[in-house]
Every structure is written in structure tokens, then in C-alpha cells.
């Protein structure tokens, strides 16, 4: 887990590009990216708020910053993948080059690479919806044989698959690729290569599917969880999910990436927007 600079920092937006139903927000962040940067681990995230016009309006929200996976590092730019699901993401989707935003990070525990599983085993990257974000930087980082399986609700969202290379796509409505769930693609892959290891991020239902499949086959799996967060650095104890062995873990510091074995099941609140 690479350290974050202490305190939020004011950064400038370099671009905000449409990608199907999503947007890719690009931010100039020399402290986190580039040669002199802290170079975050794949799976780490940042807490983000627009510097201007954050909150107010009829809903009087957002008030707190929002959590976003680091999707990619490009030179001194950091990329985030956004889906508009509420007032905070809507505001961030509005940002344009030159606008400023507050960023805290990199935060959390990312994917553990040279971990339990020997590096030569094939890596299956399984993502759903906007949850594909951390898999992009993971793919950039992994120098070994990887297979990418992504699931989306519809065609507009499936366009997000362009964020990764050589992705096999499934869609709920059959508009793109396999008509069905990405977990079906996963099961098939594991049939073909029972020795593969899994890195997954996506909606709770998908993560639970991945967890169950991998548990049944004793396949090592790391799941990037989500949870409503207030702080992102362990201060509020608000972002918990239940541990298998009782008690709770804080997604922001004990995760967001956890070993699937740590969970009895993936809670309905612990996933990305479906």
C-alpha cells in the first residue's frame, strides 16, 4: 500500500472524455503519477470533490467527497472512470479542462500481485459496469498472461470495455458479446484453465457470483469492494462489510481489495453501482 500525501490537494482537470455511458476524467497529479509520484497500486482509490459548486441545489448534496478507483496512470495524468448515478458523480461528469478538484489519495489496499498465487498463473480480470476501472491499471501493471472478462447492462455501457485491451464482453441485454452474465464467462474460463487466479470488481451481485464460483473451485480470488464512504482513510468506521470470522472490516483501509476467502458472502451494499 503506497502512502498518500497528508491532506487533500487542489488539482486541475486536463480532460473529461465520453466513453459510451461513462466518462474518463483526466487529472494532472504529479504527486501521485509520473516519475516523482507515489505510483499507486492497482486497486487503490482516491476521494474526490469538485472545488467549485460541490453541493447545494434542491438536494443540497453532495457534501462529502466521493471515492473513485484509480483507473489508469498516463505520464503525470491520473484517469478516473465515472458513471453518473447521483449528485456527486453528476457534478464530476460536468467538469471540464481547467476546472479544479480536491483529491485525497492514493488510498486503501490494492490488488496483491506476487501474493499467495505464483506469478506464472494466468490472471482472470473480471469486471462489471463502472467496476472495470481498477482492472485497467491492473492490466497495465501485470506483465503476465491475462484474460479480461467484462459484463455490462447494455451497449452504451459496454463501450466502456475500450478501457482495457482484448476484453471478452457479456451484456445483460445481449446487445454486445455474450448474452448473459460475465460470471458465466468466468465459469467457462475456469473450466479451460483451472489454475487461473481471479481479480474482480463490479456490482455486489456479480462479486458474490465470482466469490461463490471461486470458493467452489478453490480458485484464489481478490475482490475490489465498494461501500458508502465518508473519509476514505479509516477515520469514520462507516465503510464496513462483514468478515467471515465475525466482526467487520473497513473497506477503505482493510480493502477495497480483499481476499474472497475473508468474506462469507458479498453484501448487497458492497459493490459498484449496478
Amino acid at each position: 500500500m503506497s502512502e498518500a500525501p497528508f491532506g487533500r490537494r487542489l488539482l486541475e482537470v486536463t480532460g473529461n472524455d465520453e466513453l459510451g455511458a461513462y466518462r474518463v476524467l483526466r487529472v494532472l497529479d504529479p504527486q501521485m503519477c509520473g516519475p516523482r509520484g507515489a505510483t499507486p497500486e492497482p486497486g487503490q482509490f482516491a476521494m474526490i470533490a469538485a472545488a467549485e459548486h460541490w453541493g447545494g441545489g434542491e438536494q443540497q448534496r453532495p457534501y462529502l467527497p466521493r471515492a473513485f478507483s484509480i483507473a489508469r496512470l498516463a505520464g503525470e495524468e491520473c484517469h478516473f472512470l465515472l458513471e453518473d448515478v447521483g449528485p456527486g458523480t453528476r457534478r464530476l461528469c460536468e467538469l471540464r479542462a481547467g476546472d479544479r478538484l480536491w483529491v485525497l489519495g492514493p488510498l486503501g489496499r490494492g490488488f496483491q500481485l506476487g501474493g499467495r498465487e505464483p506469478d506464472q498463473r494466468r490472471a482472470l480480470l473480471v469486471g462489471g459496469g463502472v467496476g472495470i476501472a481498477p482492472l485497467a491499471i491492473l492490466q497495465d501493471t501485470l506483465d503476465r498472461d491475462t484474460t479480461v472478462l467484462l459484463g455490462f447492462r447494455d451497449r452504451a455501457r459496454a463501450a466502456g470495455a475500450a478501457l482495457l485491451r482484448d476484453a471478452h464482453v457479456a451484456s445483460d441485454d445481449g446487445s454486445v458479446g455474450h448474452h448473459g452474465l460475465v460470471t458465466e464467462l468466468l465459469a467457462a474460463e475456469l473450466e479451460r484453465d483451472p489454475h487461473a487466479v481471479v481479480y474482480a470488481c463490479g456490482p455486489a451481485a456479480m462479486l458474490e457470483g465470482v466469490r461463490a464460483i471461486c470458493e467452489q473451485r478453490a480458485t484464489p480470488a481478490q475482490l475490489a469492494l465498494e461501500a458508502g464512504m465518508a473519509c476514505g482513510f479509516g477515520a469514520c468506521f462507516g465503510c464496513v462489510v462483514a468478515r467471515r470470522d465475525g466482526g467487520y472490516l473497513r473497506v477503505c483501509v482493510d480493502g477495497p481489495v480483499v481476499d474472497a476467502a475473508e468474506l462469507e458472502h458479498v453484501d448487497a451494499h458492497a459493490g459498484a453501482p449496478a
Partner: protein
Amino acid sequence: MRMRERRREPAIYAKRGDSVSIEFCGLTLAHPIINGSGTFDAIAAQRVFGAQLHERFPFAAYVSKTITLEPRAGNPPPRLWETPAGLINSIGLPNKGLERYLAEDLPALAELPVPLITNVMGASAEELSILLDACDARAEIAAIELNVSCPNVKTGLDIGADPVQLEEVMRAVRPCTGKPLIVKLTPNTADVGACALGAERGGADALSLINTLRATALAPRARRAPVGDSAPRDAAAAWLGGGTGGLSGPAIRAVALAQVAAVATRVTIPVIGMGGVQSVSHAQDLLDLGATLVAVGTESFRDPAAAARIAEGLHEMATRRG
């Protein structure tokens, strides 16, 4: 050693070299800004921010999360709900329990560059006595804060919600420790000034307020049974795993100002003011109303360095003045 400070004279800013220090219950603090209990986990923050945290530690004293006799897992999720300019938390006071706190956390907290205030909660004078005795015995603990927003096992009413009950409990537990004893009042009461007076009569060395306002939220309609279904709706609609929670942040600042003013005019012991503080001017407002220290809580979630920014701002104002 106990020290009494009259609020009429505004908090004394004694220039010490380049720093603005302040006396509080016999402790000498570098500045008047501390954290609200449960809003900053110094141990976790150290893992996240590394050495920089100590280099620019935001608080003049560090207040621990509330510790109870037995370990608590806390409430099931969801634990958070964002409100207009505020936050409801329903954390449920998760903690390791007294024993493991003293064994595992105290050594790490003793390494912090500032004095440690341990916040404890108990459901009876008996329970509180055990907690106070144990804290009294540990040199690493500079002062103790009593979170009295806890239902009295006997009366069912929050210990801090009634002046008479609060004074009784304080009289019973005060002898347990010679360390400065701070009572963290509950704002969910009819007359907080009377409760403050009860705490002072019972032997409190200082008071802190405000804690969070009782609040709740219903799940977004998209996430619950359709409106008009026959099932009991409130049950179906609750968002927080704990059912209800506490409101904090800018939304409650105006209530905090009123309660701190009401308390500071009633008691002679020092007051720690908090509630929605986001800026130097918010902190200054509380000091102007008679608070000796100001605690930053929810604002630290938006920026872990918020309290440092505020302390530095107050320091600038003071040095410009002095």
C-alpha cells in the same frame, strides 16, 4: 492536578517561541484545536499517510474513539447517510474493549506527539468506575473524557440527558481518578445548561459538546418496497443498519453555537466546543462564546488536514494580534 479557569477571560494565548500555547486542565497544549472523539483514527491514519502525519499532526491533543468495558463490533452496514450539509452516522461505537485497548492501542497512541485523552462510556456508575480506575492507572493517558450519551441500564434514559442523574453518576465516579475528567454532554436534552451544571457539581473538570443530534434516514425509494404496499413501511424503509444515528457537520453548527453559549454562561470549568466546525472563523465563533478548546470532527473526513489548517489559521491571527 485540577485547574479551574473562568470563562469570562478569553482563552489565554501565551506566545511560546513561535507557537501559540494554551492551558487546559493543567495540560499545556500547542493550540486550541483537538479532534472530536471517533472522528480520527490516528493508528489507521499513520498507515495511510506515514511519517507526514506526525510531522504535521493536526490536533493539540488526541481524543480516542469511545472505549467500552466489553468489545463491540458496532452496527451492521449501512452506517452512513449524507444529509443536506451534514452526515448521519450509525457506527455503533465499535471498539476493542478496555483490555485490548490498553494492551494493543495505548502503546501506539503514546507515540503521538500530543497528549492523549481517552474517551470512555459505561451504562452504570459501576461500569464507569472500572473504566476510570483502569485509565487512571496508565501514565500514557493525560485526561479522560466521559461519553454520557449512553442509556443508564437502570433508568433507560441517557446518563447525560438528566441533570440530577448526571450529577449522581459523576459524584460516584469522580473519586476514581485524579486525572482531568471531561464530560462529553449529550445535546439531546431539554436544558443542556442544567446538565452542564450537574456535571460540574458532580466534579467534572471540563465539558465538551456537542455530540451528534439523534437523526435517521429512509432508504432511497428505488431501493425499497413500492410505496403503498401493505407491509409496515417504516421497517421496510430504514436505511441505517442501526436504525437511527447521529447528525453531525455544518447542518448542526448553529445548534452547537447555541448549546456552547448556554453552557459557557452557566459553568466556570473550561468548555470544549464542537459541531460543524469547518474553518478558522467557525472555531473563533466557539472561542468567542467562551470555549477554551475547539474540536474538529466531520470536517476531518473531507480533509484529514482540516484541523491543521484551522490551527495554523488561528495561530496566524493570534501572532498578527500579539
